[in-house]
């Protein structure tokens, strides 16, 4: 009884009591989440069964029985039965630089390293001295182009030496950065009040969207040569970059148009009532809202474009997948498609996952007013 008197708290000040026993702790959590109902129990056992079936075999193949040091597939097989990562080890540099001359590769690496501050300045508004450094961001494409292609004091490297990861990145980054502004302009053109502008934009978007990317790449690689006057040699990579950019822009335009249409009419009218001119109202009122809504769609298009770059193998450009397939045709390594596909898959997953994470960060940062 003495206990009770000592714990005589004023009303509302009583500390929370611990939950009753058997209602908390890890075993309860597991019980609730895995065996809470009949369905959960069945699913749990099914999952355990599947994991038990797949994971040990996969681990054996990928890790425990895998071979890292060997000179050929035959040597790999003599050592162990698992994955023969030796092919990736031997061809790692080639998968990144392809035929780019070895003594000039520092230029590609430098351009790649410079990409990070550029992207950082552009994407994160907490970046120190951001406004001043924007100039660097604008200059970056030219600096990178100069570093990679050469000229003006650097040894020129012909674009047919490009390939591997660097080619994937060049096509992907160019397509992504150029398609957004072009897409915005196309979307604005499509909802414009000027009929000529509207018709041109609609025709362009519908034409490009109505044609598969492969067809456009074929046009870039073969037809353009027929249409251009004889003797005019137009770099194949440049043609591909243009086609990929146009393709992505058309999709981007439709994503952004979706965002523009979600803005209530009152916003447009309010902007007009403030006396803002067309570009002012777009820049200050409409686009910030429209782009914010479109972020998931925009990033979706980016990721799709990035993965579509593997299609360039069809016109004979060897991207990261293409160059590794060429390596597989080496009799030494013939017959290891699994290793190569896993390697390429990891590369693409890492890049695409990073893009998708950034999009989430951006959505969280901008979630004013629309968060559900």
């Amino acid at each position: 009884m003495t206990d009770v008197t000592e714990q005589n708290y004023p009303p509302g000040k009583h500390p929370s009591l611990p939950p009753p026993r058997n209602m908390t702790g890890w075993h309860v959590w597991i019980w609730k989440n895995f065996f809470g109902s009949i369905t959960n129990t069945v699913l749990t056992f099914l999952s355990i069964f599947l994991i038990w079936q797949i994971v040990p075999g996969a681990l054996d193949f990928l890790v425990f029985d895998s071979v890292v040091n060997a000179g050929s597939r035959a040597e790999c097989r003599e050592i162990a039965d698992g994955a023969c990562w030796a092919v990736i080890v031997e061809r790692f540099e080639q998968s990144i630089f392809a035929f780019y001359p070895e003594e000039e590769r520092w230029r590609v690496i430098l351009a790649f390293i410079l990409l990070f501050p550029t992207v950082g300045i552009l994407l994160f508004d907490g970046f120190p001295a951001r406004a001043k450094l924007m100039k660097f961001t604008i200059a970056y494409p030219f600096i990178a182009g100069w570093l990679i292609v050469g000229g003006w004091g650097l040894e020129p490297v012909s674009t047919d030496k490009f390939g591997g990861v660097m080619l994937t990145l060049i096509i992907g980054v160019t397509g992504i950065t150029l398609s957004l502004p072009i897409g915005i302009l196309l979307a604005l053109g499509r909802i414009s009040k000027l009929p000529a502008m509207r018709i041109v934009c609609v025709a362009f978007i519908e034409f490009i969207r109505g044609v598969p990317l492969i067809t456009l790449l074929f046009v870039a690689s073969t037809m353009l040569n027929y249409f251009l006057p004889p003797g005019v040699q137009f770099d194949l990579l440049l043609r591909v970059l243009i086609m990929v950019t146009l393709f992505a822009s058309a999709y981007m335009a439709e994503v952004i148009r979706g965002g523009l249409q979600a803005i209530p009419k009152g916003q447009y009218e309010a902007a007009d009532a403030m006396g803002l001119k067309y570009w002012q109202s777009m820049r200050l009122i409409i686009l910030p809202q429209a782009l914010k809504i479109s972020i998931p769609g925009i990033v979706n298009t980016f990721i799709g474009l990035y993965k579509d770059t593997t299609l360039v193998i069809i016109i004979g450009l060897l991207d990261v997948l293409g160059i590794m397939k060429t390596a597989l045709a080496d009799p030494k390594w013939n017959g290891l498609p699994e290793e190569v596909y896993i390697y390429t898959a990891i590369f693409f997953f890492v890049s695409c996952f990073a893009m998708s994470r950034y999009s989430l960060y951006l959505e969280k940062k901008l979630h004013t007013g629309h968060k559900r």
Partner: protein
Amino acid sequence: MKLKTILVAGAALAATATVAHADTLADVKARGELNCIVTTGLVGFAYTDENGQWRGFDADFCRATAAAIFGDGSKVKFVPTTGKTRFTALNAGEGDILYRNTTETMSRDVDLKLSFLGINYYDGQGFMVKKDLGVTSAKELNGASVCIQTGTTTELNLADYFRANDMSYEPVPIETNDEARANYLSGRCDVYTTDASGLAATRASLDDPKNHIVLPEIISKEPLGPAVRQGDEAWGDLTRWVLRAVIAAEEYGVTQENVAELSAGPTGKPDVDRLLGTEGNFGEMIGLGNDWAANAIKAVGNYGEIFDRNIGPNTELGIERGLNAQWYDGGLMYAAPIR
């Protein structure tokens, strides 16, 4: 109608483009390198090694041609193409010559305005089965499931062969060689059919090649050879005779090893002397130096050496000479005389 006009105009433009560039040799010399169209990767025929160099049977013929022109087999730019883009790449001038395990057919020669130069590899469609199936002849394949690449001539050949022998089969359509290999190994198809050289490559890539056999029947003719654009006869002559010189070198016993010695002065063997330019002026006839063939052989060796190095019995592919042996060994390699 309109589209047709545009296409006709385009083709006409392309034709004028080729006419305007009729002197391919001058273009190649001015450029300083030969643009040679190869595949994006085919075991033994064209692939990249660990240093990023193109290797393989077809790649070596590219080098031989470059060496005949420049005296240096490294002056080649390889233009990788897929089966779909190879001919347009050649016709559009992205390559000067095509060595891309390409079957010579009438429609390609005539309709596509190509000029085939000869045959550097006689291939043909064959069948591979697992040994424990107990099949020893393609005639016993009635009712088998067959892995077949769609949209190729192999598909049509297969249908013809089974119909002619009054047998039935179940096609398992696949797109790539890797896919075929996986399906064949998992037992989704009993038989894999493609060109014999491809079968050899696939068989070599299996963990237990001894448990798989390639059946003796070859059901189609696939003569693989180089091609150039139509309309430049001089360039066609040059490239054709480089191919023949390499084949003839084997017949005359000229090898990469002894070519320097043999070409130092007249050897007294007229065939060898004419080939190596110590007699006559055959190189000048095709616009090159008289040591053209000697340079080509110095760079890559004779036909037999190219074959043995890339796809022959001692390589992973282990292909026998068969039809590709010299004529005096019962094969079809028969170079017209250089005189």
